[in-house]
């Protein structure tokens, strides 16, 4: 009788001291089943950020007169129109023409060339071949840093979590147009350093990843702006290469904002060089 009681006590002790704690620990640290986003991906469509509102339809970013319809307030609509006029006059250069300048968020979701989406338990990395562009999304439970520990950067600060197969991430602390070296696309779209974006990203079929972005910007926008970008998977043997802008940049920008074309001797071909 005594030995039976001892055995029962041992089992109960084992249960409380070992089994239950391990189970609870295991549940807390269990790695969620993460989706397979491996491979190389290419954005679908042109580098117009919001293709749903582009005017004229099928207009390409950088062509004179092409524009979108973000819910700008009056002041930022006027700024956008000024940029559009600059494009028309050939004096609104792309900031990435200065080699080494990142595209910044949210333009980093709107790149030519290709992408890789690296899913790890603690982070997701969005790697743009056309760079330098890397977005790190922390999914380990951390929050954005306190305001005093944050400063605006090109890509901002992103934290996220998984809702089943959907990555939900929150991006703040982007530079926006404050230093005139970040645009959203070549139509002249710009946003401010107060941009707050929530992105829901998931693989909607074997060949497609979709990012639904909701952008709020109390300085520039009257209401949330919803934009969807899609990325199509390329063949499995696709490789990604260096993008070394300074290697042979024959399109420098003048002080007046004009983009030049240099000949093989390094001298401008253009008639007007100012």
């Amino acid at each position, binding site marked *: 009788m005594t030995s039976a009681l001892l055995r029962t006590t041992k089992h109960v002790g084992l249960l409380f001291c070992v089994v239950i704690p391990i189970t609870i620990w295991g549940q807390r640290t269990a790695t969620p089943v993460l989706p397979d986003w491996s491979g190389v991906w290419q954005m679908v469509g042109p580098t117009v950020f919001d293709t749903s509102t582009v005017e004229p339809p099928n207009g390409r970013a950088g062509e004179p007169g092409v524009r979108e319809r973000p819910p700008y307030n009056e002041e930022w609509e006027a700024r956008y129109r000024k940029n559009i006029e600059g494009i028309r006059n050939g004096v609104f250069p792309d900031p990435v023409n200065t080699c080494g300048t990142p595209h910044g968020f949210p333009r980093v979701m709107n790149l030519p060339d290709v992408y890789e989406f690296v899913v790890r338990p603690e982070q997701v990395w969005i790697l743009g071949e056309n760079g330098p562009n890397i977005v790190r999304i922390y999914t380990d439970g951390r929050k954005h840093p306190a305001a005093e520990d944050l400063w605006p950067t090109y890509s901002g600060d992103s934290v996220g979590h998984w809702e089943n197969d959907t990555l939900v991430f929150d991006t703040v602390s982007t530079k926006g147009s404050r230093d005139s070296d970040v645009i959203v696309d070549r139509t002249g779209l710009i946003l401010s350093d107060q941009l707050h974006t929530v992105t829901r990203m998931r693989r909607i079929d074997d060949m497609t990843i979709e990012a639904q972005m909701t952008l709020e910007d109390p300085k520039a926008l009257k209401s949330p702006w919803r934009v969807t970008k899609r990325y199509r998977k390329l063949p499995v043997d696709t490789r990604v290469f260096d993008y070394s802008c300074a290697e042979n940049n024959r399109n420098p920008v003048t002080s007046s904002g004009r*983009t030049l074309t240099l000949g*093989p001797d390094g001298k401008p071909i253009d008639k007007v060089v100012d």
Partner: protein
Amino acid sequence: MKTNVISLVVLALVFLIGAPFAQPVLAHHAATMFDTTKVVEITATVKELQWTNPHVWIQVYVQKAGGAREEWSIEANGPNSLSRQGWRPTSFKPGDVVTLRVNPMRDGTPAGLFVGVRFSDATTLGRWDPQP
């Protein structure tokens, strides 16, 4: 040698509808210096291919009417995306005689934005419709 002689500006066609779709997405800068509503066809001799970022450049010689030759600089997209479209660093060899279609510079200077090319063996790269 006749092929080496001018056929400069054989065609200077305005594509008010088609040309915008022919325009490549330049990964590095806007194409504002090029007139993307026009496609000019030139016959030229390859000087060199600069297989570099951020843009690939094709340097070619075009024979002018008076006998002089003029060097043209043809700007294409970057090597990364072009390699995925069948281009290689050896696609253009010095001395090759090629027919190029380009969006010309707005100011008329000898440069252009690559649209398409037809090599002497009738193979093509880029956009090469039967009618430019």
